[in-house]
């Protein structure tokens, strides 16, 4: 879908860049513009530029096609530095989904549940977002589409930790393979809400270990993504990143910086509002879609 929409690429600057006859000063300027424009941030951009400049000098090449290949390889190498595999071998495997407001947590859970049920796993989702208006209904709608069970809070504004507990408890009792817990969106600067998240985690861990804590990041986010990741890692013990909304014009380059700086691997990629629009993260494919 992303490919057909023509989005999610380094964009026009890149195309013009590799059609120049030789590598010159303008090439480097354009490359920098393209990388910054893709939200890699000034630091990663400088690193990549230095690395490529050094390579170009070493191999004495003036062919932009070589530079393009080097760029793709450099990105792939950086993206592949960590293992993107999800570990869901526990039974039940508990997955906690966290993130700031409006990044697409609930939608991601719907798609993730579908992804799992279509592979023959039984799934229960827990609506522990008891804060946002109608979040429970939104999740229930997705769960129904994905063919997953849903555990709802018994009353308005129930403690999210107790909903999470009931979800895992439900999964254990019914022998459901995977329990996915939705949490309310919270900005990383709200210390009270971040503590609440730590509590959800603690309470769930009373029943057994948590298999994955997935941090959902909005692909359109800029350099603030790093601050988000750091705060959620500290309070929720994030084990993997999910990048959403990559079907738009955003390139999501900041995730490379997040992965590099925190050591937490990208595990899933969301590219649309359809229930099938979620895929595992493959560095090769990601790099190839950035630099076609």
């Amino acid at each position: 879908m992303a490919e057909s929409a023509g989005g999610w690429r380094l964009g026009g600057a890149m195309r013009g860049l590799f059609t120049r006859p030789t590598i010159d000063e303008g090439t480097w300027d354009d490359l920098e513009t393209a990388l910054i424009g893709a939200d890699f941030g000034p630091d990663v951009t400088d690193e990549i530029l230095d690395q490529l400049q050094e390579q170009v000098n070493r191999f004495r090449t003036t062919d932009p096609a070589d530079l393009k290949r080097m760029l793709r390889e450099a990105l792939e190498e950086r993206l592949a530095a960590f293992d993107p595999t999800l570990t869901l071998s526990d039974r039940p495997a508990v997955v906690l989904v966290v993130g700031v407001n409006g990044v697409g947590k609930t939608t991601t859970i719907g798609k993730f549940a579908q992804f799992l049920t279509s592979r023959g796993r039984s799934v229960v989702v827990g609506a522990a977002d008891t804060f946002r208006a109608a979040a429970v209904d939104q999740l229930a709608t997705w769960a129904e589409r994905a063919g997953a069970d849903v555990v709802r809070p018994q009353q308005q504004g129930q403690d999210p930790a107790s909903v999470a507990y009931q979800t895992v408890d439900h999964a254990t009792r019914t022998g459901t393979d995977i329990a996915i817990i939705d949490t309310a969106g919270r900005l990383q600067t709200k210390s009270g809400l971040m503590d609440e998240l730590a509590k959800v985690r603690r309470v769930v861990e009373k029943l057994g270990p948590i298999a994955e804590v997935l941090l959902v990041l909005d692909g359109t986010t800029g350099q603030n993504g790093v601050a988000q990741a750091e705060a959620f890692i500290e309070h929720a013990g994030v084990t993997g990143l999910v990048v959403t909304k990559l079907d738009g014009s955003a390139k999501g380059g900041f995730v490379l910086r997040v992965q590099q700086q925190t050591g937490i691997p990208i595990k899933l990629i969301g590219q649309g509002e359809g229930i099938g629009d979620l895929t595992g993260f493959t560095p090769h494919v990601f790099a190839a879609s950035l630099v076609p």
Partner: protein
Amino acid sequence: MATFGTLSDRLTSTFSALRTKGKLSPADVDGTVREIRRALLDADVALPVVKDFTAAVRERALGDEVNKALNPAQQVVQIVNDELVGILGGEQRRLQFAKTPPTVIMLAGLQGAGKTTLAGKLAKWLKADGHTPILVAADLQRPNAVQQLQVVGEQAGVAVYAPEPGNGVGDPVKVAKNAIKHARDKQHDVVIVDTAGRLGVDAELMKQAANIRKAVDPDEVLFVIDAMIGQDAVSTAKAFQEGVDFTGVVLSKLDGDARGGAALSVASITGRPIMFASTGEGLDDFEPFHPDRMASRILDLGDILTLIEQAQKSFDEEDAKRTAEKFATDSFTLEDFLAQMQQLKSMGSLKGMLGMLPGARGMKDQLENFDEGELTRTEAIIQSMTPKERQLPKLLNGSRRLRIARGSGTTVTEVNALVNRFEQAAKMMKTMAKGGMPQMPGMGPMPGMGGGGGAATARKAAAKKKGKGKSRSGNPAKRAAEEAARAQGLGSGAGAGASGSSFGLGGGAPAGDKQPTAEELEALQKFLGR
């Protein structure tokens, strides 16, 4: 806490290096401009905007106005600030109401930008202003968006027009069109149309938005954009401008620590004013946009005004007076100490607050080490005391202290440290409330005191304090004392201010050399000295 990133540190050091120079050479200016460029990029300002911006700053910085100025470096900072405010729209624009009601306001934006929540906030804000708004559920795409709007409408106490169930059923254009008629019949003077989130590249949905616009002929089209958005702000804003052509911008999620460079990009690229900022999840967390504050935020120069507003919101003047009186008459008890601490906590994250002070990035390390849990532990200790013990800390003998430590899940050392700290603070406050300016061991680390060199001064002061009062406490307690002293410093600032001491100046004056205008300083002094 990436807000205090290395880049803003570097910017500060560049500026302070400049400060020592009487005259700026082109090389100096280029160096500074490079750092500004990085700071802006790190704040997610779009690259084309950054390029134009730095070019303009460079030209002005090399011009006469700088070299004739007494302090060229300061002049450069001023130029940067001026230019930012200029791009952000100078002064704020108000909503345009239709001559014949209803006034139609349409909301548009990406998914998850916060449109539905904003619809509720806007409705509540308008209602408080004497209008009779109605919300229209034209987001029939996202599962249960209609229900969400209904709940939001209920919370805001306004009517909601939702004839279609949503979840992909119904025609939003028709809903919007009928809503106008409905509003006219029911005498609503403002119609707020919530539309589905859509991507700039989604031609079909953009066309739908344009059709809604055509159908309702809105007086205002507000483009809602997430303050955390990155470089994509440019293409998204352009796509929406071409697709639906908005008349104003609303910046959402400004309560996070994003520097919000997107605001600059959108304003500069589309030429549309930013009209509102949304600053929290509550329906009241909504305010008209202030370009000058945003400029300070993007450059990480601190946001004194917001800090003051937050403080004003949580501090009760009466309370402060009572506290000051208690200090003076020596009847300040642990109970008051607890109340004060809780008040402090109600202001939100201390780290976040301290970060709003200009020059706060100089204290980055201390902020990093600041443990918010310390407040909670102190609270637990006091709450484990009997009312009598809270009134008369002298009662606390060894066995009582042991009981308190057990009750609060802490150690006797921590209880001891708290009691010592309390006694010290009470003594100090007493002197101060009487109008004296005592030796203030605990006041050293007061944020903002040292301006640029704040970190060093604060560290020294903290070290000095350790040596003085707390020689017998163990290491963890020292740290605790240091942190609590800092917390105290902030908390008592208001209390002491109420008694009219000159204490407030300590926090305010150094701020002046950094950034805030005379006006802001005046506001600060007014607040601290009232």
